[in-house]
């Protein structure tokens, strides 16, 4: 019974991640026109068996070469990196402090404001499009990155997440530290952070992935092509020429996957109890 379950799960793993990535690799090493041809024939139901077609694809690295020569692509890649790192860094600082306050500090509107945070978290982004347009115009930052970056730095998910993690910590620990003369910043950095390390790493992983994939705010507020993030580039390709999509996507995937592996390495020694 155990053996079959494990075997079943291994098939699941193959389906979950290996198959899509191998597929992407295959398509990225095929010449664009070839791929466009294949997709058009699939649309018109002109092929017998897709697997046979896949075997007959001619491989070439033309896609990757043209990407390496495209400076705009690398500029946008750098953009994505900068946005992601700065957003996640600010989110960490802002959210851990607020999570601590929600979890351990008794103030009058604690429960109410926390509930508001949850509600805002669940709000779809489309609600904000028109109001943001108006507010950003009023402040004068329309058309700049700040329209995208600023809201995301203060997204309530972080405070919610850290409140749940810090809630489980013992009050006595913090009070003992206070008695010993520590200020709250020391407490957060030296006591709380090590204790919630697994959650903290998970938070960083989730946020880097989400910020890296951020799309709608860019489409709505940033017109200048040089300031675009890579996700917008992929979106544009998907709309116009899907056959050219796969090679940039491979490169696009590398940072989040790297972060994932770093996360796994960090988690390995700590993997006793969550």
């Amino acid at each position, binding site marked *: 019974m155990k053996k079959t*379950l494990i075997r079943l799960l291994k098939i699941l793993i193959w389906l*979950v991640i290996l198959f*899509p990535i191998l597929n992407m690799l295959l398509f990225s090493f095929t010449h664009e026109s070839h791929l466009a041809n294949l997709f058009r024939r699939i649309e018109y139901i002109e092929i017998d068996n897709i697997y046979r077609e896949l075997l007959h694809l001619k491989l070439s690295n033309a896609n990757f070469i043209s990407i390496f020569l495209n400076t705009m692509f690398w500029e946008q890649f750098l953009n994505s990196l900068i946005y992601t790192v700065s957003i996640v860094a600010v989110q960490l600082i802002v959210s851990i402090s607020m999570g601590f306050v929600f979890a*351990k500090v008794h103030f009058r509107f604690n429960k109410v404001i926390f509930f508001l945070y949850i509600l805002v*978290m669940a709000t779809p982004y489309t609600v904000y499009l028109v109001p943001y347009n108006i507010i950003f115009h009023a402040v004068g930052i329309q058309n700049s990155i700040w329209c995208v970056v600023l809201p995301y730095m203060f997204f309530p998910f972080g405070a919610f997440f850290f409140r749940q993690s810090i809630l489980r910590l013992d009050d006595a620990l913090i009070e003992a530290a206070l008695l010993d003369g520590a200020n709250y910043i020391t407490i957060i950095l030296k006591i709380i952070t090590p204790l919630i390390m697994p959650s903290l790493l998970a938070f960083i992983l989730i946020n880097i992935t989400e910020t890296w994939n951020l799309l709608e705010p860019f489409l709505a507020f940033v017109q200048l092509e040089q300031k675009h993030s890579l996700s917008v580039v992929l979106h544009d390709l998907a709309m116009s020429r899907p056959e050219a999509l796969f090679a940039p996507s491979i490169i696009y995937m590398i940072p989040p996957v790297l972060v*994932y592996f770093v996360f796994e390495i960090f988690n390995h020694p700590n993997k006793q109890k*969550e």
Partner: protein
Amino acid sequence: MRISKKWFTLLALPSLAGFILLYLLPLFLGLYLSFTDITNNRRWVGFENYQNVLNNKVFQLAVLNTFLFTLCALMVMVITSFGISNLLLIDHKRLPKPSFFMLPLTIPAAVTSFLWYLVFHYEGYLNGILMGIGLQYNWLIGPQLYLPLLLLYLWKYSGYSIMIYYAGIMNIPSEYYDVFQLESNSKLKRLLLITWPSVYPQTFFVLVISLISAFGIFKEIYLVWKDYPPKQLYMLQNFIHNNYQRMAFGNAQTASFLLLLLVFGFVGALYLSEKKIV
């Protein structure tokens, strides 16, 4: 814990200021705007926008679809992620860690939507295998469209839920299991009667996260079918988005707020039931 005003300000002010200025303020502004005629000097029109939108047949279709899909998606997500978390705990050494299921999120939406389309297309991967048995099925039309869509949703978004459940189940004190051993040896009963109730807080978290993700599926639908997906898949976000394209901001804003109302209702209901259970 009591805390001095100075510290409270230092710790809470950044988040609160950002939250109020960048989230609450726009929300209230949006609420006000939904009662005005945005494209026409913003004159006050009261409930006219809401009447227009609610009576719109297209909107009604969108609401129905979104509601149905979200309901199915949430149920399936909770059951599947709970099940997989338990399976992953059977043998931690040789099975993947729960964070493994986060990997699908690293693949850009453009690619996942395209590959998904290829898998379920009439000439695609799934049918390619089925042809060997002699079947071929059109997965991408009609009511059977729900199945591929749910699978896509599960594939992409299970990561969060599995991680949360995994952590929660690992934290269940073994005393509960030991006491249960005295009464019964059935693993299934243990799962349903001890493990499942012990993770109610996690279920709450998972439901909220999955709700947010369920709205994210709109991106993939949009990438495959552009502005006008098949009837079953026309979601609220499509409605809102199409209205933005046509510059019908009044409709878009009002519909967004109605969507918001639904979401608030759901989250509020969850929050209240959490109080009772936890």
